[in-house]
């Protein structure tokens, strides 16, 4: 498996391309933009973007998907059945997607929103906007914050410590590093509204 990170200077966001050595069908995570450098990366590796996996369904951050769909006949996986007005394959918590021969396990991230899903692939976890290095995603209220932090604590930080965290925004990290530095100060969800 080859993994490529694409950083968009326009949206300050990351996309991740995963595919086999030598070309073939590939998986693309969170195409916030689909710009020339990303296209060149796909073409240089002789990939065809067969699958698009979304960790969130925020329309304002999926401009790249519009472009991508004009170029590739790709299947989109997301928490919702419709993304940008087009059908997507809904993903449920715990579901394992077999994409390009690799098992991607969906991890729902409650608190960030019903559309927020992380994906775990042997040694890597794609956390989307729910969690980044030393920070959690934006939340609308204290209950959501507590729920999200609980999800991060029990669903992400319990993964093997060498697991690499690949977020939608910001630099990568590891589970071991986040156990040391992540600000886990919120109360439990039940305690948020006693």
């Amino acid at each position: 498996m080859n993994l490529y990170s694409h950083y968009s200077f326009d949206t300050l966001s990351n996309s991740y391309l995963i595919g086999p050595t030598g070309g073939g069908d590939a998986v693309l995570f969170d195409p916030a933009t689909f710009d020339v450098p990303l296209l060149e990366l796909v073409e240089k590796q002789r990939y065809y973007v067969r699958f698009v996996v979304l960790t969130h369904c925020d329309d304002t951050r999926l401009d790249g998907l519009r472009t991508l769909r004009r170029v590739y006949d790709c299947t989109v996986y997301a928490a919702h059945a419709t993304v940008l007005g087009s059908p997507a394959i809904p993903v449920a918590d715990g579901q394992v997607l077999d994409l390009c021969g690799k098992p991607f396990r969906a991890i729902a991230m409650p608190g960030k929103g019903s559309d927020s899903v992380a994906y775990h692939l042997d040694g890597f976890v794609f956390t989307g906007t729910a969690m980044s290095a030393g920070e959690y995603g934006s939340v609308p209220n204290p209950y959501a914050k507590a729920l999200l932090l609980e999800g991060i604590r029990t669903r992400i930080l319990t993964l093997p410590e060498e697991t690499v965290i690949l977020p939608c925004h910001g630099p990568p990290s590891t589970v071991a590093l986040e156990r040391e530095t992540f600000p886990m100060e919120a109360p439990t969800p039940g305690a948020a509204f006693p």
Partner: protein
Amino acid sequence: MILLPVPSLQSVVRERPADPLRTVSPALEFRRHRRYDRTMFNPHESRTPSAEAEELALLLEDRRFISDLNMPGLSLAGIGIRGNSFYGCNFASMTIANATVTECSLELCFFPFASFTDVTFSNVKLKNCVFGASRVVRMSFTGCNVIQCNFNGLQAREVVFDDCDLLHSRFNSAALREVRFENCNLKETRLLRTAITETEFLYSNQEDAIFAMEDSW
């Protein structure tokens, strides 16, 4: 953990016998002949228990582009690296001292829980690299692109960032003592919950850095 018994890794390379038939471990031979093509290391792969420093020396000599190295716990002293590119390499818990890294590029390289002492980075392009929870003493970054790198939990003392682009890098929960940011781009650089002591921001866009997030919850 392997400590180089020589003052410089480059000297290891120079003194290496020219005999192409010299014996090396099968794992090392495999490494030398495998295709290096921006492949990411597998975090679950067990590291090579021996010959790591030698392996790195050989790779530095043989190849400009190096990827998919999994060398946690590596210890190096007196190393000089120039002109190499690294991609998707794991050097977690590395110890490195008295080293210079010049005109190299590193992307998706991991140095968490590492120790850097008297290390100089000059004209190095760093992107998506992780230095979190590392201990850094007397280190300098000069003319470097440090794009979206993770310095969270860093323990830094006497560190200089001179003429560096630190776009979107993070120093959350770090402890910075006697650190100087001079002529640096700090756009979207985050220093949340960072303990800053005797630290200077000279000719840098400190106003574009983020020192606190609005979170009323």
